[in-house]
């Protein structure tokens, strides 16, 4: 047996997973409650004791960690046009596992200046203009950032014709120049920026967040937790040299404050005559709905889906549903305690999934013109995706995961939304996806074997 320890430093929990890479299998998981104030070594030591109570003493040959501690990798981004470079900046940051606090477009205002100073991000991503295109906006925004001051690094990935000028404006700051996120109009080039974000995270953020205290114990903190999840999802879809993957997939993680959706699929139109509108979509896409969550953002679910529909799905009165929503919103640690609150919680989770997957998926619209019917697709086509992965506390601890997940499927009442038509639902019951993403950096075959073993089918719906 060759056990490896995988650690996820979260904001509230330190979670440990032990895996055997010799004959690949999950050995056990445990977690311990931590706060921002607690020394993270205490949380880790505590979690390890709990783990070894279950597994017996383990002699780890390697220890790897990911982190979303201290609010995760907090980023701000600014671009020029909202649908173009600003969207590209957001897509790049989310794809690198960041928590995007806000994305600005056009020239930063005095109010923005105040807000940026207050938010004090870990990284600022400054973009805008295609190569050879607009330079006014990015140079203006560089001047605003220079005026704001602060010590956070700035990644410049806008119009290359403005890069050096921006660097001069920001003299004295840590500035990293990357290739433009949109070098030519309508093309997306986010990988160089994502690589830079990861490097800054490793070199700087890990230290700044006090995670180096733990570094003697572990072989390395390798990535932000969402990045580990994305890595695992890509591995699961594509497979390794030796083991096949399961193909295109969608993954949902409904949390207390936000809901993350991942898709691994090209997402191209079924009918080749369809014209594509909007930015090209990345093969692995992550979106985060900041207003959709089971506790802190519970009112966002109600605003987006409607109290009446949620109450109907839960089979309780609208008034009672409203009371339960308020109660959960105020008591963010509260778990469902009876049948009624359980139904309410599951109905809320169902609509959280529906709203978030609908926002993630693309749309196909029919336009009648002189030339007859014309199909126009924006975003990703996920109709043919047939694997739906479910993770996150609110969904993996209920028996009805399959039914809740089916709210993320194609819906006849919203026929233009390109959500998956029919999916096998796989549940991350042991909550190991991020850990396997970490493990895959060194032992991809073992990580994939364990993922395929541990993700449990919860029926095929629809």
């Amino acid at each position, binding site marked *: 047996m060759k056990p490896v320890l995988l650690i996820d430093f979260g904001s509230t929990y330190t979670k440990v997973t032990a895996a055997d890479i010799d004959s690949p299998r999950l050995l056990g998981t445990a977690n311990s409650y931590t706060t921002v104030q607690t020394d993270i070594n205490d949380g880790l030591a505590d979690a390890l004791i709990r783990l070894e109570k279950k597994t017996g003493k383990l002699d780890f040959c390697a220890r790897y960690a990911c982190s979303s501690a201290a609010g995760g990798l907090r980023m701000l981004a600014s671009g020029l*046009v909202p649908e*173009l470079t600003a969207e590209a900046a957001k897509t790049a940051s989310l794809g690198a596992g960041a928590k995007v606090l806000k994305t600005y477009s056009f020239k930063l205002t005095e109010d923005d200046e105040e807000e940026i100073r207050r938010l004090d991000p870990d990284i600022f991503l400054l973009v805008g203009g295609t190569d*050879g*295109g607009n330079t006014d906006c990015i140079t203006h925004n560089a001047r605003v950032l220079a005026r704001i001051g602060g010590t956070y690094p700035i990644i410049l990935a806008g119009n290359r014709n403005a890069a050096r000028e921006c660097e001069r404006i920001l003299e004295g700051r840590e500035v990293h120049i990357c290739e433009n996120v949109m070098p030519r109009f309508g093309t997306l080039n986010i990988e160089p920026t994502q690589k830079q974000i990861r490097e800054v995270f490793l070199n700087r953020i890990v230290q700044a967040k006090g995670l180096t205290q733990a570094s003697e114990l572990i072989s390395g903190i390798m990535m932000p937790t969402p990045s580990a999840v994305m890595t695992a999802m890509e591995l699961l879809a594509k497979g390794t040299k030796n083991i096949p993957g399961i193909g295109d997939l969608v993954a949902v993680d409904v949390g207390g404050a936000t809901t993350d959706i991942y898709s691994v699929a090209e997402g191209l139109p079924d009918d080749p005559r369809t014209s594509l509108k909007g930015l090209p979509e990345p093969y692995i896409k992550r979106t985060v709905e900041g207003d959709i969550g089971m506790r802190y953002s519970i009112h966002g679910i109600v605003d987006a889906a409607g109290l009446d529909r949620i109450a109907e799905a839960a089979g309780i009165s609208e008034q009672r549903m409203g009371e339960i929503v308020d109660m959960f919103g105020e008591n963010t640690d509260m778990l469902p305690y009876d049948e009624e609150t359980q139904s309410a919680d599951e109905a809320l989770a169902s609509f959280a999934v529906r709203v978030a997957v609908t926002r993630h998926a693309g749309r196909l619209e029919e336009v009648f013109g*002189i030339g007859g019917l014309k199909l126009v697709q924006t975003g990703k086509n996920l109709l043919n995706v047939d694997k739906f992965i479910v993770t996150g506390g609110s969904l993996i601890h209920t028996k009805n995961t399959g039914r809740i997940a089916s709210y993320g499927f194609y819906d006849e009442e919203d026929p233009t939304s390109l959500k998956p038509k029919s999916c096998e639902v796989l549940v991350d019951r042991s909550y190991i996806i991020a850990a396997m993403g970490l493990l895959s950096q060194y032992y991809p075959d073992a990580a994939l074997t364990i993922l395929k073993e541990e993700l449990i089918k919860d029926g095929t719906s629809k």
Partner: protein
Amino acid sequence: MEKKTLVIGVIGADVHAVGNQILYHAFTDAGFNVINLGVMVSQEEFINAAIETNADAIVVSSLYGQGELDCRGLREKCNEAGLENILLYVGGNIVIGKQPFDEVEKRFKAMGFDRSFPPGTPPEVDIEALKEDLHIEE
């Protein structure tokens, strides 16, 4: 001298792709940096592309007779978006039926289009006009 940037496309629900494609090649060969948005392009898409690429001109094509409706308000939206000095051209079957072109041109002028071109205009004519209006010396 620096290349001038043009944003081109077919406006509205119009799917006539061929003429626009010919313009793309002709303008590129003539030394312009051309951003081709293709068919079924909304006013907002023309404007967004022009902002990001710092375009010098927007060249709108329309073949299906609805051009006058589709183009209405484009100049005002450009002004609103900070593109006050951008050159606006339109060409094709831009109005319904056969109307005297000088009247059509007058109407499009009033809508803020610097130049309009009747059906069958060879690309060379547009290129000459662009060179003149953008002060490009041979």
